[in-house]
């Protein structure tokens, strides 16, 4: 799923400073799950904005709404009445959602309230781990299902760099595991270390031609 983090409040306050009435648009999918942009967070941010602006004597008027998937035009369309009634939209969805809402309501200024950070999965309660770089050329068959592109800080193939810390931790963060040590252990357990001993030529970065676009085969 897509993981995002809320932007610093000063940045948000600055973006919406010129607007009296703002719609805070949440998304009910990934950003809800990662505790960043669901109904609960929309409520908290709205309240925080009202408190901040109220203190300056510039009472903000907030409207709150959360749609199931903000990256779907049809679902965003449900917000039309609410969008019509405000001067700007503050979206708590991922970049895809923000762009969809901006496209559907072309005339309305749309601002991001969150930074979309990575694709990941929960590691435990309230902790998410990046584990996919959406590189377009999946390598997981060769690495025991652990992606070196994102689980390694440098995203390198062919094994660990020389900077691995004691106990198989990453050069840049002793709290994070070295992805290649994880790969080694997994493959060792499966008796498939041969896969790691193979040389892999430089990655093809042209697999996804930017801007990316995918056309499913029409049935």
């Amino acid at each position, binding site marked *: 799923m897509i993981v995002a983090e809320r932007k610093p409040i*000063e940045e948000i306050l600055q973006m919406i400073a010129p607007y009296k009435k703002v719609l805070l648009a949440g998304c009910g999918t990934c950003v809800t799950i990662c505790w960043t942009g669901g109904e609960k967070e929309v*409520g*908290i941010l709205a*309240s*925080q904005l*009202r*408190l*901040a602006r109220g203190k300056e004597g510039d009472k903000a008027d907030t409207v709150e709404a959360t749609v199931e998937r903000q990256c779907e035009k049809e679902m965003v369309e449900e917000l039309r009445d609410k969008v019509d009634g405000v001067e700007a939209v503050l979206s708590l969805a991922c970049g895809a959602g923000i762009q969809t809402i901006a496209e559907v309501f072309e005339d309305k200024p749309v601002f991001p309230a969150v930074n979309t950070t990575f694709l990941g999965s929960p590691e435990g309660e309230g902790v998410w781990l990046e584990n996919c770089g959406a590189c377009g050329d999946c390598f997981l068959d060769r690495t025991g299902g652990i992606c070196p592109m994102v689980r390694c800080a440098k995203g390198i193939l062919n094994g660990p760099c020389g900077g691995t810390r004691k106990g198989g931790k990453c050069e840049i963060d002793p709290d994070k595991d070295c992805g290649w040590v994880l790969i080694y252990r997994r493959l060792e357990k499966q008796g498939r270390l041969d896969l790691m001993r193979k040389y892999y030529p430089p990655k093809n970065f042209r697999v996804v031609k930017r801007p990316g676009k995918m056309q499913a085969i029409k049935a």
Partner: protein
Amino acid sequence: MNGEIIAFCCEHSAYAAADVVGKQGLHYPEKLRVIRVPCAGRVDIIHMLKALEEGAAAVLVLGCEDGLCQHLTGNVRAKERVKYSETLLTEVGIDGGRVGMFNLAANAPHKFIKIINEVNDRIKERERENDSR
């Protein structure tokens, strides 16, 4: 609202302690408004923020003593949420000290009074500071 103190009180501890205050004929400031909750862990960030938006001088979450929450983690989570609310307030230049979490047992009416009095004193002090400015 007009400068009230709102206290979300866990019914297993603080709410009962507040009752004991009354039963023993003890007192706390009249501006206290207790909202009964089943556990401090029920209190959410939005409840605290909304109370401040409405004009509360301070918002307290009062739960069981550490390690003695009927629901094990309720008071710990409450503390984390209060801390987060504090951050949210500080971020926008509002005194984070206006939210607070305290732990007490059902049989601790004096602690209950002490908490409320201290919070009330801080509110008064802040008012004085603001007046003199």
